């Protein structure tokens, strides 16, 4: 009973090794930093989501009762619309700006890499920590610094420039009277947080892989994070300098972007999108990594076309740098430039398509289990397919001109950023939740929430495709009554989706209070993080693991029932230690944890 390998006392893990607030904010443990990121990100998801619901509520009714002239689809609305907006015009503009800025900079970009990546990446690598733990904590402090800037922005005059900060609107005090400097400062600081996280992961993956784990034996989530890190390190500094120039422009009227002083406002758009287009891949590539893990685990089958998926992540990262100009198709960019950017943009479709086909092929002849994380994985495939396919409209010059800056674009990027990246994030949380909290949640509640979110999401954003194609411009508070049915559908969809998120949140919180103790490997995952206790010990493993095979070998696993989960023969040694440490329910006692239902 008192077998204590590596000096760990029984029941010791990263959550209970030290206690107290101070032990958390000074921690160098990647898992704790990841958990802190997760809490912060989810908090801001709630804030940004609240703004979204407020926006949708405003858009239930137009102010205008004028019908759209000459429109063949006009059905003759004669309702009496209230003539008053719910929010003042400026308030509305602030709401959509802050919704965008918070969701992009505070939620989606740090979501998978900084929170789940931090928790999982070193464990998947069999490492004790990331390469630079102090830099990692510093990244988190920078993140908090950035959020404080955003909170100060909220508390003062707000921000009304749109999350894209286009000049000269943002760069001149004459046009935007809001706290642009504070918000851009926040985004600047968050940028460096993101750079340092990326740098850390890049180095960790390069130098800290365990014995036997060659590049092509790395789990696909790590490939995705590797590709993401490249973008973070190489693209984010350009955002940094751009925002710095914007701050200097606004504070000292330096004249780089201000046309009145001889500057070029469109140059800002080039700089901004040079980062912000690759940033789309910072958001989506890790999501693809999560999806790959979910699909292979819950099909119990080696991923199909491993190398193709791995390399297509890197391919996306590289192509992502070459296509920023497709955000400027209508902004007086030359026709030649538009042609080149359109051509290059199409090449984004290929690695994306390859991934979807490979995921489908993985399902083929698999043993597919529909536990909560897998539902998010499948939702990811469907929503990403829609998001990706509708991207073709935007890559194609002729249709792109019409659809640019309409709700069609809004719907498209919500399918990609929310329907794909955020859904993968939520799926990842449900997947790794038992690992880092040590608790099992109610699978039934989780599945109901997933279905509600999926339906609500489509209800919210599919109507936006229709109204966008019909010419409804984005960032409009007031609109022609003709578009109202679509806006209504969208708003009701968003309420439904919000219910789903509340239920998902409830499921997770409930598990913290009443959840059963999670076994080391509840799903039958083959990657390294499942071969260590849930929650893992401070240094992640009792024994430094050695790899001798591709990452998704499910043949060696035995199912021992819901409480003990799955055992991997290759890591039998580790399993014995876990048994000795009472990490597995029913195999010991006295570790202070709930031992299932009365075993």
């Amino acid at each position, binding site marked *: 009973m008192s077998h204590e390998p590596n000096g760990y006392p029984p029941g010791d893990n990263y959550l209970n090794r030290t206690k107290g607030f101070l032990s958390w904010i000074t921690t160098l443990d990647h898992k704790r930093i990841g958990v802190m990121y997760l809490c912060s990100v989810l908090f801001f998801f709630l804030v940004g989501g609240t703004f979204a619901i407020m926006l949708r509520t405003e858009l239930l009714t137009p102010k205008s009762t004028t019908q759209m002239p000459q429109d063949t689809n006009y059905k003759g609305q004669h309702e009496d619309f209230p003539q008053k907006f719910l929010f003042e*015009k400026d308030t509305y503009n602030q709401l959509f700006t802050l919704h965008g800025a918070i969701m992009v900079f505070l939620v989606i970009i740090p979501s998978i890499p900084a929170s789940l990546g931090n928790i999982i990446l070193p464990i998947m690598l069999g490492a004790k920590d990331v390469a630079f733990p102090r830099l990692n904590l510093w990244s988190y402090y920078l993140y908090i610094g950035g959020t404080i800037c955003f909170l100060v922005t909220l508390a003062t005059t707000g921000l009304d420039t749109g999350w894209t900060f286009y000049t000269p609107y943002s760069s001149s005090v004459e046009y935007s009277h809001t706290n642009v400097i504070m918000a851009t400062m926040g985004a600047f600081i968050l940028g460096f947080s993101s750079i340092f996280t990326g740098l850390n992961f890049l180095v960790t993956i390069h130098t800290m892989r365990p014995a036997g784990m060659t590049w092509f034996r790395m789990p696909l989530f790590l490939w995705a994070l590797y590709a993401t890190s490249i973008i973070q390190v190489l693209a984010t500094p350009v955002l940094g300098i751009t925002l710095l120039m914007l701050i200097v422009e606004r504070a000292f009227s330096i004249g780089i972007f201000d046309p009145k002083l001889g500057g070029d406002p469109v140059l800002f758009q080039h700089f901004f999108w040079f980062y912000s287009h690759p940033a789309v891949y910072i958001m989506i590539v890790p999501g693809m990594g999560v999806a790959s893990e979910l699909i292979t685990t819950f099909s119990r089958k080696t991923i199909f076309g491993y190398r193709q998926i791995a390399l297509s992540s890197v391919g996306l990262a590289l192509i992502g740098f070459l296509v920023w100009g497709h955000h400027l198709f209508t902004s007086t960019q030359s026709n030649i430039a538009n042609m080149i950017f359109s051509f290059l943009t199409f090449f984004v479709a290929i690695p994306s398509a390859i991934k979807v086909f490979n995921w489908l092929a993985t399902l083929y002849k*698999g043993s597919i289990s529909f536990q909560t994380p897998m539902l998010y994985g499948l939702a990811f495939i*469907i929503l990403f397919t829609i998001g990706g396919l509708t991207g073709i409209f935007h890559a194609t010059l002729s249709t792109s001109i019409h659809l640019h800056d309409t709700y069609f674009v809004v719907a498209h990027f919500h399918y990609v950023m929310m329907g794909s990246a955020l859904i993968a994030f939520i799926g990842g949380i449900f997947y790794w939740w038992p690992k880092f909290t040590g608790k099992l949640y109610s699978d039934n509640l989780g599945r109901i929430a997933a279905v509600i979110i999926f339906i609500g999401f489509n209800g919210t954003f599919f109507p936006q495709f229709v109204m966008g194609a019909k010419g409804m*411009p984005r*960032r409009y508070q007031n609109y022609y009554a003709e578009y109202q049915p679509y806006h209504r559908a969208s708003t009701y969809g968003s309420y439904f989706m919000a219910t789903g998120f509340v239920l998902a949140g409830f499921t997770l919180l409930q598990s913290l209070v009443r959840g059963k103790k999670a076994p080391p490997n509840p799903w039958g995952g083959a990657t390294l993080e499942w071969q260590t206790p849930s929650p893992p010990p401070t240094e992640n493993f009792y024994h430094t693991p050695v790899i001798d095979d591709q990452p998704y070998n499910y043949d060696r696993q035995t199912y021992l029932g819901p409480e003990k989960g799955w055992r991997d023969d290759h890591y039998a040694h580790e399993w014995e230690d876990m048994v000795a440490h009472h990490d597995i329910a029913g195999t010991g006692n006295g570790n202070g944890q709930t031992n299932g239902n009365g075993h």
Partner: protein
Amino acid sequence: MNWAMFAADLAPKSFWLPVQGSEVAAETDVHFYFIYWLNVFFFVAISAVLVYFCVKYRRKTPDQKPLPAPSHNTVLELVWSILPTLVCIALFYVGFIVYQDLMEPPPETFKINVVGQKWSWNFKYPRSGLDGGNILHVPANTPIELTMTSTDVIHCVYIPAMRTKKDVVPGRYSKMWFNAHMPTGQTTPLEYNIFCAEYCGTSHSEMWGKLIVHPTMDDFKKWEAAEIKSIDLKPPVELGKWVWERKGCKGCHSIDGTKGTGPTFKGLWGMTTADHLVKNYSTGSTRPVVVDENYLKESINEPNAEIRDGFPSPSPMPSFKGQLSDKQINGVIEFLKTIGKDAPPVPTKP
């Protein structure tokens, strides 16, 4: 091949797209629907496969093993890499061809200048010198070329019916063209929407213009002559009201007492030092001012000089210096007098 005819067959009453106002719009729509059906095909195929696999290979017992299947297949992987590549290159090519039609105007065009400012358009006709305000009148079946610039932030002219849009950027001139199409038998003018599609501040979502397409050049010229005459002949009050409606005042200044982005015009004229405080943006000092001709003229030319207390400082209003003639400014003043402090109530319908 007549793209437009084909388009008309494909989408006579389109669910997805607004009314087609030009032949280029019809060409674009063909392309839209081509991509659309391609998307539908891929989406249905992928979803069907997904659902089929999910049903067929669902796990029935907790430890069910998967069926033996290869973990990769070079031929298959090559096929699904190369096939999308070819489709994409084809799509790019067609898209670019139509795009050239959308962007390259024919050599002979009818030119109109556009000035965008917060939050209205001003369409000017260089040939006649007419200054048309927020409504763009054009003759049908004539290539129209817009030369556009902005006096403040970036705007974007978007005409859904023409399937075209272009940013209007301060400090440079951008160009856009379209050729409005007139269905045979149509003898009255057609009316379309113009939106601003680039976020430009407070009233961005109300920066709406109108496009009126006259059936023939003669009709257009008749309208133009009548318009010039009517503006010239308008009595000052009428002219002032016309300026208020057409030159963007309306977006912020109501005439029925509603508080907008700027102070309402109702009861403005004749306010005295007792009830009218203004603030200077540069000095920040506040002082009472009588609303008279000088004050109004100054406020039109230099909105930041004396901002009504309680309204944003600096003022979001653009300067109208050089945008309005003296006659028009006088007209506005006369118009304001009719709805001033001591004026009898007037009907508020614009």
